[in-house]
């Protein structure tokens, strides 16, 4: 055993639903390194990490932590041993304070009836946060913090646990550039202190900026481990998908047609004001802007999820009064939410039932669902969108993120929309599946559908949009043509 390694894993295997999620996976993690774990969705990264923090028990394989074999299989035991995870969906108790969250479950040594010394905990929390160089009050209620601040608190929590291995799953997905920089400087600090970090992200530039070593998984199998310096974006993608991708974005195929949607002076107090734009059949309108610029809020308003205070919405020249999502869907507007779990699908329903949910009356005679027609439609859509599932009766909660996204898109498409609003359509989705979503967008466009695509990823906005609407603090600051748009111009308008 190499003493440099703080954590070594080999032969790790785990099956779900008769499918091997992990097959003989290995990992060697050094002290004080940032080790990126890369792979497409469904490659087994999440399962692997869940085993490391004791959420799943492996079928076989060995895990050695600081030289001794790990047999523990419970989250609290793994925490005691020094392995912590910062989850993609941040797990906090919103009504408790920062300090209370940091020390949750470890408030005293006296068990359930021990006396909590809030003062002492607040002091300890303040010291921790200070060491990290972040200015968050230990007594602030968690719910008033920004996502970035919540993440810092999670890291503080891990450190207070004396974590020697911290797993970060998509830690930057909701962070601004400035916040990412803060996070990275904290990570570098942690490295200095000998903490090893397993870093999971789909953002290539980040991976190359922060990681020392990269391990690639594909289809649940271990592919390779290499120093980050020996890889390029292209060679890494090749390892991840097992093939070469010549371009990140497919060639556009749409032809601009008639005006589909026109929005005039749309306003919602405190969220956005005076938004005016139109979208044509066969084009992609990108909406860019920083977090909180009002992008999602505009989409929600057009789709009838939130009310607007003033302004007009026209679809194919006809003014619409949209009060509910049902109105919007009936009029031909489809919305794929950024909040896939919250608004996208019903986890306990099958792929088939989710796909037909918005168009169920089309598959019913009177009150009764026509099983055959429904199944045929679902089968076709599953094949069409290449949804990877054990069958159309598989519950959507068991699918990978990318496939869940496809189910949601399938549902929206079945309601035959003229306009589709895609809000962060590739968030948390890996490269290969991203490319498929892009191709899908192009297909929609060439079928004459108008597309609005909201995204935080500038390369995606630039690669996919025909025109780009830039928002800043609820106001539109620019409407750029493809020729005018560069990352720099968009950013300059976004911080206007």
């Amino acid at each position, binding site marked *: 055993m190499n003493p440099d390694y703080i954590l070594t894993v080999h032969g790790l295997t785990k*099956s*779900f*639903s*008769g*499918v091997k999620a992990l097959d003989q996976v290995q990992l060697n993690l050094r002290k004080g390194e940032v080790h990126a774990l890369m792979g497409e969705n469904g490659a087994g990264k999440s399962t692997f990490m869940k085993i490391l923090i004791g959420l799943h028990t492996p079928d076989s394989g060995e895990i050695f932590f600081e030289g001794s074999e790990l047999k523990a299989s419970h989250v609290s035991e793994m925490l005691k041993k020094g392995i912590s995870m910062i989850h993609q969906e941040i797990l906090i108790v919103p009504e408790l304070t920062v300090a209370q969250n940091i020390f949750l479950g470890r408030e005293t040594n006296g068990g359930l009836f021990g006396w909590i010394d809030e003062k002492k905990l607040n002091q300890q929390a303040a010291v921790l946060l200070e060491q990290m160089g972040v200015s968050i009050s230990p007594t602030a209620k968690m719910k008033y913090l920004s996502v970035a601040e919540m993440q810092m608190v999670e890291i503080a929590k891990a450190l207070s646990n004396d974590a020697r291995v911290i797993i970060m799953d998509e830690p930057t997905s909701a962070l601004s550039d400035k916040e990412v920089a803060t996070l990275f400087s904290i990570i570098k600090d942690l490295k200095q202190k000998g903490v090893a970090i397993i870093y999971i992200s789909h953002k290539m530039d980040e991976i190359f900026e922060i990681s020392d070593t990269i391990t690639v998984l*594909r*289809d649940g199998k271990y592919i390779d481990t290499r120093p980050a310096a020996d890889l390029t974006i292209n060679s890494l993608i090749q390892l991840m*998908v*097992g*093939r070469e991708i010549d371009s990140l974005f497919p060639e556009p195929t749409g032809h601009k047609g008639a005006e589909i949607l026109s929005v005039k002076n749309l306003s919602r107090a405190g969220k956005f004001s005076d938004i005016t734009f139109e979208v044509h059949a066969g084009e992609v309108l990108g909406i860019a802007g920083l977090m909180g610029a009002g992008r999602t809020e505009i989409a929600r308003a057009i*789709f009838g*999820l939130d009310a607007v205070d003033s302004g007009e919405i026209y679809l194919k020249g006809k003014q619409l009064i949209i009060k*509910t*999502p*049902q109105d*919007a*869907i*009936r009029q031909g507007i489809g*919305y794929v*939410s950024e909040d896939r779990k*919250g*608004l*996208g*699908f*019903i*986890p*306990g*329903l099958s792929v088939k*039932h989710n796909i037909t*949910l*918005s168009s*169920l*009356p089309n598959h*019913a005679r009177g*009150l*009764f*669902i026509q*099983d055959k027609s429904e199944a045929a439609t679902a089968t076709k859509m599953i094949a069409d969108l*290449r949804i*990877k*599932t*054990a*069958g159309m*009766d*598989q519950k959507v909660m*068991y699918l990978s993120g990318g496939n869940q996204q496809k189910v949601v898109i399938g*549902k929206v498409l079945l*309601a035959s929309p003229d306009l589709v609003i895609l809000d962060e359509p590739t968030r948390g989705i890996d490269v*290969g*599946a991203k490319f*498929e979503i892009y191709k899908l967008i192009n297909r929609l466009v060439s079928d004459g559908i108008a597309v609005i695509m909201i995204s935080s990823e500038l390369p995606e906005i630039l690669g996919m949009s025909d025109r780009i609407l830039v928002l800043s603090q609820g106001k539109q600051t620019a409407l750029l043509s493809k020729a005018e748009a560069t990352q720099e111009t968009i950013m300059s308008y976004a911080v206007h």
Partner: protein
Amino acid sequence: MENLLKTDRNSTQKPYKTRIRGIGRYGIFIAFMLICLVLSVVTPKFLTVSNLLIVVTQVSINALLAFGVTFVIITGGIDLSIGSIVAVTSVVAAMFAHPDSYPVIVPILAGLAAGLLLGAFNGLVITKSKVPPFIVTLGTMTIGRGLALILSKGRPISNLSDSFNFIGGGQLAGIPTPIIILIVLFIVCSVVLKKTVLGRYMYAVGGNEPAARASGIQLNKVKMVVYTLCGGLAALAGILLTSRITTGQPNAGVGFELDAIAAAIIGGTSTTGGTGTMTGTLIGALLIGVISNGLDLMNVTSYYQQVVMGIIIIGAVVLDSLNQTKN
């Protein structure tokens, strides 16, 4: 591209998880059969046609209530008012069921209307006020009990027509009418849940309400229908009860809502919404009936029966949650 084109390796194989779930779903049925087996060994009287007919007849009222409350629980709600709806229906139906007054359809429709109205009232308040269903139906429970006492002036209404008493006390081809009513309504409710748009929407609303709304489902409409339906089924249970005891009884149905909810939960309906089946609920109701009948036959007093029933309810939910965490 080939790894993306490829469909799932095991697409032909039935998923493992579905199989485990399958066992879980049949678990309650297996438990039911085992208990029946034990009872038929312990008390020879249990496994006789006449006793079984008695059991199912007794179960029918609770089962009807449980069907209704299953709809409600699947949408993520709860209805505590059904016991009181039974009482209101009982009184209203009895008022129109005296001999030589109205044809038998009149008390049935009057009772049904009363139940549907109270159910619709629940639905209306829940959808318009956003007050939790627990609170709203708790209020309706008290209102209903009061209405029943007001309408009957606090006294039981007896002297009902023979044709009305046939509903709960008669036989068709040797089978007690409550059993026939039970079977018919079981089929109707199963079809509603599994085969209709409404049923699918119930699962969607209970499974993830915001996503159901974003999918274009009118939440209020679904909830309105579901609570009204539940009130209607409670009314049918009330009519059945009134006819069986040949009396309109304002004090009828006290605590019935709890037995009905218990039957749904024993039958695998999740209290958090989104899952549940009518078959499960029916077996849940039968299980409760069989156990109480078996304990009767073994001369166990009703005091002990309540303890046993409570243990079974908790046991069923514990088993269900163990089954879920295993996955």
